[in-house]
């Protein structure tokens, strides 16, 4: 008797998967999701490009080759070139300290790393104003030595550095925690010193996570508005970054010019997204 299953029962179980939703519900859910994506993500992006080319190619080129626009692009690139490598270094150092060593105040350090994410960028900018303005904490010292930080490039770099600090560290801490330190310990017992262990074992293990963090950091460094706006002083051709330049153009009703520069930033963002996906795919491939 045992072992016999009625045929009709077998037939039933081999039918449709019970987890599958009816067609109507599937269509409804998918169309809701797709229309949301189109309305809120794709349409604005299209609008930027339509607006940018509204008054012809000539004006588009003129807007992005305008000396003020070019200087804003240059300044943005300079800020990126300075902040991204520095934050990559800081991020590695912080993640290394947190994951490979045990010390008091570790949880406080982790919280502080998240601080730039938690507070509004405008407040971050104001902190630098409090520190470096002529009435600020270091104001007298800076005046005496004729160092200009606020309303100059160093201020913009500092503010961007602050705002983009968590990206690399946040990416690396969970990665390095999950990897543990067994490979580093193996390297030490094999006679490699700390420096060689870092270059030959740690860095290759975190490279995709690091690259991912750097890409995110880069995207934010290009687009940062709030903190930079407070410390820059909006001096055209001198302390205007791309987002600030767009705002000025917009406020002066030069919509096509504003959207032309905005389209450049959008292209940069799309490239970043593609790079990010390639890195994710590579990281997944290498485990």
């Amino acid at each position, binding site marked *: 008797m045992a072992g016999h299953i009625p045929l009709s029962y077998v037939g039933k179980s081999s039918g449709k998967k019970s987890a599958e939703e009816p067609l109507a519900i599937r269509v409804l859910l998918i169309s809701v999701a797709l229309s949301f994506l189109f309305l809120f993500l794709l349409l604005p992006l299209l609008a930027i490009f339509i607006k940018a080319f509204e008054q012809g190619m000539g004006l588009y080129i003129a807007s992005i080759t305008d000396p003020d626009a070019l200087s804003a692009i240059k300044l943005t690139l300079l800020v990126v070139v300075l902040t991204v490598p520095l934050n990559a270094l800081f991020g590695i150092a912080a993640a290394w300290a947190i994951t490979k060593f045990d010390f008091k105040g570790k949880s406080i350090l982790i919280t502080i790393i998240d601080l730039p994410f938690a507070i509004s960028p405008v407040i971050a900018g104001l902190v630098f104003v409090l520190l470096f303005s002529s009435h600020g904490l270091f104001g007298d010292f800076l005046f005496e030595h004729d160092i200009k930080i606020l309303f100059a490039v160093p201020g913009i770099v500092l503010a961007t550095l602050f705002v983009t600090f968590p990206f690399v560290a946040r990416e690396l801490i969970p990665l390095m925690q999950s990897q543990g330190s067994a490979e580093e310990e193996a390297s030490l*017992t*094999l006679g490699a010193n700390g420096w060689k262990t870092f270059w030959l074992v740690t860095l*290759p293990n975190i490279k995709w996570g690091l690259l991912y963090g750097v890409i995110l950091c880069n995207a934010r460094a290009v687009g940062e508005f709030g903190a930079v706006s407070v410390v820059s002083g909006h001096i055209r051709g001198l302390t205007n970054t791309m987002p600030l330049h767009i705002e000025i153009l917009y406020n002066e009703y030069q919509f096509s010019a504003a959207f032309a520069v905005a389209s450049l930033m959008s292209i940069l963002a799309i490239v970043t997204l593609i790079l990010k996906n390639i890195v994710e795919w590579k990281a997944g491939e290498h485990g």
Partner: protein
Amino acid sequence: MSIQIKDVSKAFGSFQALQDINLDIETGELVALLGPSGSGKTSLLRIIAGLEASDNGVILFGDEEMTHIRTTERKVGFVFQHYALFKHMTVADNVAYGLKVRSKKERPSKKEIKEKVKELLSLVKLDAFADRYPSQLSGGQRQRVALARALAVEPKVLLLDEPFGALDAKVRKELRRWLRRLHDDFHITSIFVTHDQEEALDVADRIVVMNEGKIEQIGSPEEVYEHPNSPFVYDFLGNVNVFHGRLEDGTWRNGADSLHQQALAYVRPHDVAIERQKSAEDAVQAEIVHIHVVGRTVHVELKQGDTDRFLEAELTKDRYRELDLKPGETVFVRPNQLKVFIPEDYSI
């Protein structure tokens, strides 16, 4: 290279991982540190390797004090439970690593390194896998690569932390036999950590049984198995039956009473004799609960008539047939060999 461990202690916060450990290991010995998890065996191994610092005490390799020498300079080979192979390097690069990272004047030539790697890979029977990555190997193969990598730097001491812990039973057995042969050929002073008593008994020259940060017993596998010096060692090394009894004029009698000193008798299952008739006064009546045959031995589970405690006996197939035992029958059991411990704070 001999190893001396003198008065080593280590605490992690309020947890005392090791307490005044003293241990001498002779050149060429293969020693097992055996104990349950949390007994401090891995901490001791890591302190010997320099991966952990002891709070006090001294570690000597030969006559050289190692206590404050960094791991990098200790010249130990360390094998990790989860292999710790470099994921992004091929098997050959993993094995070559220890030689490649040496300073220029100590580093062998590229050709020499290549030859050495080839030699080691054939030793661990992985010649064909030189260009593979660790993720493409099985657990047993990975651990063999880890061993080859550790041996490449010609360590004075080989330390293995639960080297077979992550492998399945069959591979584990093969690999530990292989480790034993390897040790017989090379005679590197080796210490391996394990919680598996069978593994320790099978492989080691000497076993150090550890419990709660202290050494319980040091001895040859036979010594610690046949003559455990504490209830813990008895219990940890194989199955054991405990008879609750009393001491009467220096001899142990079954059954506790209020007049005499309480005493526990520890008896290995193969030292429990089963009889149909009561042949001696100390034989205890018991009921057969369950019988199962594993290969050539028969395990019999019994319930003691006087105390309702469960017992386990092991007998040969011949003896089992002779007695013709069946579950539910009442028989008499008698310990052939027992060791008596007076219960203190230790309870089972």
